[in-house]
């Protein structure tokens, strides 16, 4: 599997990078004609011509990653040989002809975005057992098929993976009978091939991402960032240039650029460099073309990355998109920067919060903020013209919550890099009726055994380490002769984050399961 994994990781980005070398027509209709011709050239030898197109292919809709995986399977199981330029053109064509609309892909973006932490919920317990026991629920939720094709999918599945009938959560049911009489129909109802939403999106004129964008985001463990992205077009590709500033402790400027393709009119997939680190970008352009949201990540370590949102600068409304800090202590004076668009208006704040403007332009306002020492703890509104935001004044931290509350990390070894887990500590205070969120604060991080078994197996000594940004780095994979049973370095850990508040400390706790590596890394898990 190791060779396959390597290809999978690069996935779509390989086409982006290799295709950059070849001039490609910028004209979408030319691309469409070329894509159609290529699909016929490469696929029609096996996929018979049916009523509305080639068999199977015309009965299925997928994301670009989904089509990428299909071509990968055809290469590895059915001897398809396709060069990367053609492969790219085929994926682009199929994603446009038989893709998913923005609404259809919206519930499952966490998987496309290669997040290491997400909570995945199946539509019901049967599908959780039948599909979700091996796949994310996004794996099937990001496919649309005719009922007939969902049934063919069942035939393929057990033919390719005969052991699946025997696995736990399959062997307790009459698997084959169930999937061929009931499940395929259920999937066809949940994820039908034909939808009005897709017909509408396919017919719509796609919006161009070219222009100036106001960017804000957050790097877990590092803090927020803000800045400008400038997008231009060259042929089939878009170039993004980033001029960003880290608002966290590092305070560094973040610069770089990327080359991207927009599939299906909204699926931005980029490959770039930020401060010397190779990155991948998975963003979705909003239906009106005025917003982009998603995540970028380290090209090799998908667990490291940043939340990303961008709003188009031209004609943008007055809005605060992020700020350098969400809170201030009673009696404290500190600098707080607000970042957004159209921030030229008068700055004011609720009584109890003193403000003076240090610097102001249309995208940023830097304020000297003073919280009155008698200001009642709570949320204080701050306005810049029509834009509204709030700063929390607190007297004392009452509680700390660690996020994620529970998650997993994966041991690393061989061709599988370790998958870290990033924690953050958020301070809260007691309000009149419920707790009030103060904000994310720096913390001291510790690991402890989660329970008696973990203590007995000395998981803390073996499973890995946490650094003071709250990032847990797992140990190496494989049997460990130094452990009881020579078992691997898996562990069940309590992650403790301590926030100092004057002379007292408040702690919060999360659970981390350190588990084994994944053996394959398809773009959609």
């Amino acid at each position, binding site marked *: 599997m190791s060779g396959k994994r390597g290809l999978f990781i690069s996935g779509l980005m390989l086409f982006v990078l290799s295709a950059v070398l070849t001039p490609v027509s910028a004209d979408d209709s030319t691309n469409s004609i070329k894509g159609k011709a290529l699909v016929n050239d490469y696929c029609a030898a*096996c*996929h*018979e011509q049916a009523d509305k197109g*080639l*068999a*199977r292919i015309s009965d299925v809709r997928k994301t670009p990653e989904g089509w990428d995986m299909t071509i990968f399977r055809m290469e590895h199981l059915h001897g398809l040989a396709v060069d990367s330029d053609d492969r790219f053109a085929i994926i682009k064509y199929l994603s446009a002809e038989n893709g998913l609309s923005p609404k259809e892909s919206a519930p499952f973006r966490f998987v496309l975005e290669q997040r290491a932490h997400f909570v995945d919920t199946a539509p019901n317990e049967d599908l959780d057992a039948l599909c979700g026991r091996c796949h994310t629920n996004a794996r099937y939720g990001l496919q649309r098929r005719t009922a007939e094709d969902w049934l*063919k999918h069942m*035939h*393929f599945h*057990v*033919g*390719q993976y*005969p*052991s699946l*009938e*025997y696995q*736990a959560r399959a*062997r*307790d049911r*009459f*698997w*084959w009978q169930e999937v061929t009489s009931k499940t395929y129909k259920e999937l066809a109802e949940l994820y039908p091939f034909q939808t009005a939403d897709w017909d509408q999106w396919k017919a719509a004129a796609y919006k161009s991402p070219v222009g100036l964008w106001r960017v804000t985001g957050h790097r877990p463990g590092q803090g927020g960032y803000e800045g400008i992205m400038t997008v231009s077009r060259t042929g089939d590709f878009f170039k993004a240039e980033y001029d960003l500033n880290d608002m966290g402790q590092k305070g560094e400027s973040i610069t770089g650029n990327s080359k991207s393709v927009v599939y299906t009119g909204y699926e931005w997939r980029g490959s770039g460099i930020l401060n010397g680190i190779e990155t991948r970008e998975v963003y979705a352009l909003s239906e009106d073309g005025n917003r982009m949201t998603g995540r970028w990540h380290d090209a090799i370590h998908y667990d490291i990355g940043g939340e990303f949102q961008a709003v188009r600068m031209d004609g943008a409304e007055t809005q605060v998109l992020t700020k350098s800090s969400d809170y201030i202590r009673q009696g404290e004076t500190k600098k707080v920067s607000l970042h957004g668009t159209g921030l030229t208006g008068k700055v004011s704040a609720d009584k109890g919060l003193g403000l003076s403007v240090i610097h102001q332009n249309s995208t940023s306002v830097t304020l000297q903020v003073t919280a009155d020492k008698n200001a009642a703890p709570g949320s204080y509104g701050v306005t810049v013209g029509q834009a509204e935001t709030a700063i929390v004044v607190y007297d004392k931290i009452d509680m700390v919550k660690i996020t994620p509350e529970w998650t997993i990390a994966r041991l690393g070894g061989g061709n599988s890099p370790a998958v870290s887990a990033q924690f953050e500590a958020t301070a809260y205070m007691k309000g009149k009726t419920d707790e009030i969120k103060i904000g994310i604060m720096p913390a001291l991080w510790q690991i402890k055994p989660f329970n008696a078994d973990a203590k007995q197996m000395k998981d803390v000594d073996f499973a890995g380490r946490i650094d003071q940004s709250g990032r847990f780095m797992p140990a190496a994979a494989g*049997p460990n002769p130094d452990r*009881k*049973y*020579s*078992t691997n370095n898996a562990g069940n850990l309590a992650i403790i984050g301590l926030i100092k508040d004057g002379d007292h400390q408040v702690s919060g706790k999360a659970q981390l399961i350190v588990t084994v590596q994944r053996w394959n890394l398809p773009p959609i898990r």
Partner: protein
Amino acid sequence: MGKIGIILVGAFLLSQALLSQVGQTEAQAAETTEYLITGTKPGYIHILDMKKQEVVRSHKVPNAGRTIFSMAPSPDGKVVYIMTNRMKSLVGLDIDTGEQLFRADFIEGNIRRQGFFAFDVSRDGRELYVYQLSTEILLSEYKQLPTRIAVYDTSSGLNARPIRTFEAPRRIHMLMKSKDDNWLYAMGFDIYKMNPETGEIVETLPLRNWTLENRSLPDVLDFWPLWDQTDIFSTPVYSVKTDLAADDPAAYKTGLLTLDLESGKYEINDFEDTSVLIFSTVISPNGKHAFGTYTQLSKIDLDSNRLIGRIDQDHTYYAVNIAADGSQVYVGGAACDVATYDPETLKKIGQIFLPKGCGDQSTASLRMIQRETLK
């Protein structure tokens, strides 16, 4: 439980009588030795003399892929049949020389056939029974064909094709030939007693369809044929008492299923509240005990249906077998060693490391044979 005890003792006496007869006959002909057979990645089988605690033969299995799956020795201990090549082939190797004597590659034109561990050799050594999933590879789709049992003639050589086939229920993971060769047991949702000529199911031994009150469906998955010394197949069965609270440890039961391949006697008895996982079990030649393995080695008293011994092992072992005289218990499967235990004290008394760049025994069977001593 009294009943099974009596039956087991009876079976034991009978088998001892047979053994002593065989022993006398063969003593006149040639010296015999008991061997253990296991397999390792990449595609090797190993023959181990357990009394001497050494590997005496290692053979590369031709076109095996990496993994050795289930194995069954011929009754005379001369040939071992091996499910391999991603369970798409069954290979018979001469245990002494490693020569490939038999090979059935299951693929048939555009029909891909794949086993799932389940196969057995007839007691007369003439036929092999293999469970197969069949997938027709059409131009743009796969089509499942009925699951089946294919019967091969062991004398068919290296391009063996089935001499007969019959449909079989899905999800079979174990095939077992009765000692008198009259029946074929196929284990899946239940255990089906089949006519080995026609595939007719003459009796269904209930498992999924068991009728225990206040009990969940049983959970069983076993593909380790380990009945060499007793002709009694045994496997752990997990279930939940539904009349107890979900947080009550007594709600979770581990039982032992036994099927006597000689008498047909079939029983399932709980022996503990589930506290560890057990992957496979073996019955002692005297019929008094069962031994189960995974991360622990467990000893079960079959008179009282109680757990009477358990130790932590050095690492996980999937398969357990036992010497014909009951004097040693062997564990293998997973990692690259076979450990020997004293069945009385459960103390480890030996460990044999497997050669040939071993990359794990994986789910290879652990079989015992008695045959002419290998020189």
